[in-house]
Structure formats: structure tokens, C-alpha cells
């Protein structure tokens, strides 16, 4: 016999010896007894799992707010897109609700919209403009409201520059 065969025989022999045995006497009776026994209820496990899931949800999303707000949350969200720029100046005063903050953010965003800018009076006879034949764009920077009460924006400076390659004409 080759070595491999001898070793395989030994392996099989030992493996079989490891699983050799028989159930003790009365096995069948104990099975019958087990069958007759009511099954363990697993209701407690489901309750525990449900409780843990609830705790995890609350930990993740936070406890629902209990304050009375006159503005529905849905309305507020529609006026404040998630991509709206968040100015560091916009900070909710202490004790203010999230809804109120979102409303103010929406107001500030509307106030900053570029469409408020064309009303800036420009003198066509000004020497800078006369020197530029093709002025197509006015870049206006406005004072950012440092406080939410400063919503009446004021123009600080007007920059006039000639058309450059890559610029797009605005209507």
C-alpha cells in the first residue's frame, strides 16, 4: 500500500471513531415528550427587536418636534431647496424653531436673486462706459445681510468690464 492510502485509511478510521456512538436509552420517549411540549414563544424576541429598532430610529432621526408651528413643514421645504447656499450670517437666534429659520433663509435667498439688479441706474455718458463699445454685462456685488434684519439691500459698487471670450450674452 502506498503511504497516501495508509494515511487515508487511518484518517477515515479516526473520523469514523469520532462520530461513533448511539443516543442514550429513552431517546424516542424524550422526542415524544419534546413534541408534546408547547413551543417556546418568541414574542419577547420580536418585542426586543422592535424596541431596539425604535431606539435606533430615534437616535438617527431625532425625536419628533412637539412645538406648535403655524407653518407646515412641507411648505417650508418647498421654498428652501436643499442646495440653497447657507450663509454663515444666517443663524437662528436661540430658541427659534427650525421652521422660522428656513423661512428666513428663503427670504434672503429671494432677495439675493440676480433679477433685482437691473434697476441699478447707469449713466451712458459716463467716461468709462463711453470708452467701452460693447458692454454686455454688469457685475454687481451687493452687501450681504449681516443680520436678518438687513434685508433692504444696498448696492455698494458696480464693476464694468468689456466682453470677454467665453462670456454669454444675457437677455
Amino acid at each position, binding site marked *: 500500500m502506498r*503511504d*497516501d492510502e*495508509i*494515511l*487515508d485509511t*487511518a*484518517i*477515515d*478510521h*479516526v*473520523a*469514523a*471513531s*469520532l*462520530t*461513533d*456512538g*448511539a*443516543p*442514550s436509552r429513552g*431517546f*424516542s420517549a*424524550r*422526542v*415524544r415528550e*419534546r*413534541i408534546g411540549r408547547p413551543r417556546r414563544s418568541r414574542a419577547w424576541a420580536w418585542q426586543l427587536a422592535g424596541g431596539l429598532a425604535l431606539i435606533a430610529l430615534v437616535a438617527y432621526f431625532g425625536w419628533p418636534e412637539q412645538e406648535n408651528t403655524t407653518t407646515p413643514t412641507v411648505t417650508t421645504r418647498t421654498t428652501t431647496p436643499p442646495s440653497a447656499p447657507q450663509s454663515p450670517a444666517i443663524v437662528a437666534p436661540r430658541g427659534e424653531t427650525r421652521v422660522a429659520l428656513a423661512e428666513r433663509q428663503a427670504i434672503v435667498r429671494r432677495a439675493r436673486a440676480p433679477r433685482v439688479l437691473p434697476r441699478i441706474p447707469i449713466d451712458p455718458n459716463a467716461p468709462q462706459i463711453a470708452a467701452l463699445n460693447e458692454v454686455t454685462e454688469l457685475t454687481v456685488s451687493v452687501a450681504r445681510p449681516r443680520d436678518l434684519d438687513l434685508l433692504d439691500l444696498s448696492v455698494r459698487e458696480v464693476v464694468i468690464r468689456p466682453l470677454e471670450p467665453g462670456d454669454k450674452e444675457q437677455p
Partner: protein
Amino acid sequence: MTAAADDLLERARAGDAAAFSEIVRQYQMPVYRAALAALGSPADAEEAAQDAFAAAFRRLDTFRGESSLKTWLVAIGWRKALTRRRRLRLLRMRATPAFDRAEGPDPLETVADTRPGAHAVLLAEDLRQQLRRLIRTLPAKLRDPLLLIASGNYSYEEAAAILRVPAGTAKWRVSEARRVLREKLRSLGYAR
């Protein structure tokens, strides 16, 4: 299945306790030995086998005869044993499977010096103990099919059905288990 076995099964399905007891009597040995292969402890194996028969009794309606009743019952026993093994491991009640503890008496105590062939007997016993130890160190993926097949002389197809793996996989795992064991034995000087 034979007509008698079919009849037994039908009666058990109808709730005949005596018929199911007869099924238990007929198949308790393979179910128990498969559980022993997975758990190594006779006490744990018996618990798992009892669990398996209790579960089988409740699920008799689901047996559709795709495999033999024996394979179906052993597969349930195997699952129960694995579940028990996992639980035991989680509880850290045992550091190693219990079959590894059943080492038997020290060979030095059982072999008389004056007996002829004592050295050969001692060597064989030593090999047996080394093999037990080496089988214990095998990963479960290799050890389980090796011991399961040894527990009941199952074919690879039967073992695959019980282990829920393709037959080729079961065959490869047993072959790999043997190869690993042979190499380890060689490294210990048991063969060239």
C-alpha cells in the same frame, strides 16, 4: 421509498404518534451521529437530534420525497447541530469542540512493555491521537464534510444534500481535508 415506509410516513403525517415513534427509532442513529460529527459532544448531539425530530414532526407536510427520508431527517439534524454549535461558540461555553476532548486513555498506560508488538500498538495509538488533534484543527468547512461522511458512509451526493452544497464541492472539501491531514502527518514524521 418502500410501501411500508410510505405508509409509516402517511400515518405520521396524519398525527399517529406511534408511527412517528417508529420513524424516530429507525433513523435516530444516523441523525444522532451526524449531530455528533458537527458537535463532538454526545450530550449536545443528543439534544440536537431531539430538536431535529421535534422539528421534523412539525414539518412532515413539507417533505416531498425529493430526497430519501433519511437524508431529509439527517439534514434537519445537521442544521440543528450547526445552530447549536454557533450558539455554543457565541456563549463561549467551550473553547474547542467536545469531540476533541474525548482523547481516551494515555497510550503509555494501556500498552504493557512486555507484550509483543507493543511499539507498533503504541505507534498506532499515537497516530490516532495525532489525527484526532489534527482533525480538530481543520477549518469547519473541511472538517464537517469529512466527519459527516464518516458518520454514516454517505455518498457525496447525500452529503452534498445535507450540507446544502454542490456534490463537487462536497467531494473537493473531503479530498482537501485528507490532503491537509496527510501533509501534516508527513511533517510529523508519520510517512515519507
